């Protein structure tokens, strides 16, 4: 099966000598919801910039649905929609005009562009704002406007560079639902985000990039299986004076109603609750201390740093 996106040995060195990509390779399969994660300055935006032609690669190959961008970039672009990290529309244009105009840039007849504009502005809750200048929109609305604009030509591959940055929780959840819906309808989605909960909830596969190298490229499920331990916060109904005996589990008292417990791979939560039950401690709620993917992400980056140090 032809990959939706295939990247081979992609390298980028900027004019000032900064090497942003050291020769990364990865594939994204059609229909996938793929997370491209990495700390600031890791090379995510450079990669996206190269895919959508805003950055020129130094070496390597990029294909979108089998079309090499060096051979037929216009055809490749026709299948690609991009939602950049920063707002990049004219602040003085009206919402409706911005989206219809983008359709025109993709060669869409005006009538079709207008129909699609109505469809996506309605789906993204912006139809009432169609006559408003873009600068008058809230941050969340501006992000949704960029999504509508990127979808106007109904691309097979949609790349979103931190689409929910600065967006409130309610709106973020509604954007997730929308993205999951268009993914179910067949659009391949690549997402970069700093909210690892977002990547864990939405994405099936993942690549982690750090200092211009891919340090992990696997499915989210496989990655989470490698987690050796998880740290939970348990809230007790009764007041606790000291950390109870947890029978082999490492734990500490956070405050008089909360315990932090580390559960190693192979240990069972049933044993933990049994130990607590024996001492008459009733747990009313429980949560991960940090997002599981976040813990892995941090440890992978730490390993990468350590490897670099050893070299």
């Amino acid at each position, binding site marked *: 099966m032809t990959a939706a996106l295939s990247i081979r040995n992609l390298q980028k060195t900027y*004019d000032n000598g900064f090497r942003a990509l050291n020769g990364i390779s990865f594939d994204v399969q059609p229909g996938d919801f793929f997370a491209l994660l990495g700390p600031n300055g890791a090379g995510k935006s450079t990669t996206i910039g190269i895919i959508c032609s805003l950055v*020129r690669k130094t070496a390597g190959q990029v294909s979108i649905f089998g079309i090499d961008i060096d051979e037929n970039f216009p055809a490749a672009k026709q299948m690609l929609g991009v939602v950049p990290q920063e707002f990049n529309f004219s602040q003085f244009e009206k919402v409706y005009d911005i989206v219809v*105009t983008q359709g025109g*840039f*993709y*060669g869409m*007849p005006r009538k079709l562009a207008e129909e699609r504009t109505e469809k996506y502005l309605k789906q993204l809750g912006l139809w009432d704002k169609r006559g408003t200048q873009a600068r008058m929109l809230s941050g969340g609305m501006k992000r949704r406007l960029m999504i509508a604009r990127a979808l106007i030509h109904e691309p097979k591959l949609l790349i979103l560079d931190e689409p929910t940055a600065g967006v409130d929780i309610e709106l973020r959840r509604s954007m997730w639902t929308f993205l999951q819906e268009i993914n179910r309808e067949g659009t391949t989605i690549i997402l970069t985000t700093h909210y690892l909960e977002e990547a864990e909830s939405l994405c099936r596969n993942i690549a982690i990039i750090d200092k211009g190298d891919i340090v992990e490229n696997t499915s989210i499920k496989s990655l989470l299986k490698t987690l050796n331990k998880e740290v939970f916060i348990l809230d007790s109904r009764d007041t606790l004076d000291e950390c109870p005996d947890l029978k082999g589990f490492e734990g500490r008292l956070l405050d008089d109603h909360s315990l932090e417990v580390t559960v190693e791979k192979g240990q069972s939560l049933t044993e933990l609750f049994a130990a607590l039950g024996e001492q008459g401690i009733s747990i009313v709620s429980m949560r991960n201390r940090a997002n599981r993917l976040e813990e892995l992400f941090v440890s992978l980056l730490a390993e990468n740093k350590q490897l670099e140090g050893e070299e």
Partner: protein
Amino acid sequence: MNSNAVWTSFSTIIRREVRRFMRIWPQTLVPPVITMSLYFVIFGSLIGSRIGEMGGYSYMEFVVPGLIMMAVITNSYANVVSSFYSAKFQRNVEELLVSPTPNWVILAGYVLGSVTRGLIVGLVVTLIALSFTSLSVQHIGITIAIVLLTAVLFSLAGFINAIFANSFDDISIIPTFVLTPLTYLGGVFYSIELLSPFWQGLSKLNPILYMVNAFRYGVLGVSDINVVWAFAGVLSFIVLLFAWGLHLMTHGKRLRH
């Protein structure tokens, strides 16, 4: 992109450009009209009546073609330099760069959008001029051709200026320090026959002199220069600037890293 898609994209760019300068008409259309009206009143009517004839015509008749051309030149240049630099500054130029629109279509679209503003302003200035004097165009073909080509030439120049510009200051340097002096010294207000041979020779190095005189030849039938040279020069510069603009879009590092 097939030819229909290319045409759609091209017309979309022009539509957006026209929408932009019509939206801010108090900044784009009104000031040149007021400025030119003042020129007509002061130089054409008040001072002009004391100057007498120039090139066989009243001073008002002589100065009108030059002032129309001046409006066309400055507005063609100003529109694209401001619009394209703003698109760079606000990064909405990326809307076009990520699309399959070919670079030559982007360049041609911006240029034609700018030519439209230059011609609209030129037309309004002409209508105002008609309230001061009568104009009987001698060579309609030459008049239309030279005004159109001049607008294209200065739109291309403005586009290149916008690509190189890194700040809003950079888009006013060329109009202020190059375009305005060349226009004022380009035979808008006087015939170079009034100058000494040395200054006449120097004036002939000014490309705007040729465009103004070719336009004046079209309208009045008189010119300080050979009109053929004007067309040859303008066409050559158009080819050169188009090629340069396209090169900057395709290979330059100012739009794509």
